[in-house]
């Protein structure tokens, strides 16, 4: 199961990097969403994948009887999902505003903050 997920995570990373190499903001957004999902899956897999064994210590024992999945990475993933979700929501709105205002979603044409022809500083005085 871990191997399958490892391959899947690899595909996720490849797809997200491919998308983020694009000049278009909408592809960047999709790439960022895929990237955060790839990381979440990665942490999830790092905590072992075990079928139907509750990570509960039985009465009178000090440790679970069978090998269980580690619940801590799952807690980490939950935190990361919430954070990624809120940041993605912000990025969506930002991208939409930028598209409305700048009239393009091509990063090559977004040059208001950094014009190509900037004036040179004075050479002497």
């Amino acid at each position: 199961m871990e191997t399958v997920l490892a391959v899947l995570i690899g595909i996720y990373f490849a797809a997200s990097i491919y998308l983020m190499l694009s000049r278009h903001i909408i592809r960047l957004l999709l790439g960022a969403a895929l990237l955060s999902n790839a990381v979440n899956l990665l942490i999830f897999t790092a905590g072992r994948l075990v079928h139907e064994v509750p990570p509960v210590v039985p009465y009178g024992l000090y440790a679970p009887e069978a090998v269980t999945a580690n619940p801590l990475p799952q807690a980490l993933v939950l935190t990361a999902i919430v954070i990624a979700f809120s940041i993605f929501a912000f990025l969506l709105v930002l991208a939409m505003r930028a598209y409305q205002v700048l009239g393009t979603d091509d990063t090559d044409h977004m040059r208001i903050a950094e014009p190509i022809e900037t004036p040179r500083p004075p050479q002497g005085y």
Partner: protein
Amino acid sequence: MAGPSDVDVDLSVAYVDATVPAADYLVALPVIAPLIMGAFLLMLRRQPHIQPMVAGITLAAVFLGNIVLALRVAESGPVFMAMGRWLPPFGISFNGDALGVFMALTSSLVALVCVIYSARSINGDGRRYGFYPFLLLLTAGVSGAFLTADIFNLYVWFEVLLISSFGLIVLGNSHEQLDGAVKYAFLNLIATTLFLIGVGYTYGLFGTLNMADLTLRIAESPDAPTGTLMMIFVFAFAMKAAAFPLNFWLPASYHTPNIVTSAIFAALLTKVGIYALLRLGGMLFPAAFGTFQDVLLWVAILTSLLGAAGALASSDIRKMLGFLVLSGIGAMFVGIAVASPDGVHGAVLYAVHSILVMAALYLAAGVIGRMTGSFDLRSVGGLYRASPFFAAMFLILVFAISGLPPFSGFWPKVLLVRAAMTAGEAWLTAAYLLSSFIAMIAIGRVWLFAFWRNGQQDGSEVAIQPLSLADQRAFLTPIAVLVVVIVGIGIIADPAVYMAGIAAAGLFDPTAYITAISPVAP
């Protein structure tokens, strides 16, 4: 509740039984106070006039708390606090050592000063859309990153400061800002996600997230693939710190927002990246970090030269300051690349100096823009005649950023040059000195054109708007406070140099950091 009360479980290995002494809460105060007051200010968004007051009082309290904390750390070592009394490695804990506390202290001073400056420069709109809550949350995120002892928690604070900085950078909604914000937001998000990848792998390999615990376990397992891990971390933090070739988001965005926002960003955000690199590279993965020396050497050389050259080529003062931030990052990387105790000592001291001076320079640029109505070197002038006091302060800042004595930039420069020479890195020393020379020409030129020259470049008069008395109080006092600290560090260097020294020593020998968290200590 049917708990297993008859089973004999020794809770003391995981749980602090004694009450936490009140003094220990000091290490959590820099995070808790801004978080609570930031949320409180959100509720007060219809009372814009009291927002700066509340934010200022909060940050003043945080600053005072940080002073007490720093004195205690200097005297008796790291201050540790377990959240919810769960001991590491089970719970999240804060561990303020000299490095974290020194950086947190400096940042809280700069945040406080920026709030004073903002009281007259952030108008009703900025206040209604949440400038002060964002600022407080940003401070909480920065302090949390400096003080936490848990690397997943470090990631969370990175995200806290990232999302508040998103809010600040788009505040005002101009076309320029949206353009800059898109680049800032995407590249910083990618850097933070990369950091999370590293955290995931670290947990998978070592099964713990606590930094003290990790330091021990990594030292015990030399066969673990720490080189790969460190590569992810170096990439992520170099991007956060805007080191070449990952620096492009910084000059694209830092000149676009309100000048107070720029000042806070330039002072704090890149230094969090430097701090994380020092903490993880210097303390957690020293062996793996050593293999990146050659790469970091080139990063240092190219970042400092690129920053200086960019500063020389910019005509907009705000853009030029953005490039000066870069050349400062290059200087810190000089110390990190050498990685001797002297080098790291210099890098820490430079980070503190850079936090103070960059904030003061951006705030001063704001005053230049307000008085002359322009940030362009070709059309500013005549400020010496208008305000000799302001001209004198700016000149001090010029000397400080160039590393001339007796100002705060001199001591880190001495340490960095000495460390680079001792390590036998002649090219590194030469590149660093050349970069700081070019940066001095670039910033000295601002003083020459904006203050010394009487008219514009084409000879016409500059219509100077003199500052009213209230404006002078609001804008020049914060700059004066920073200038006093900068001169103070330059003349009475001992406290700052000592603090940076124990900060650097604490990274090379983390025994004190680890024993502060007693149960995992050997």
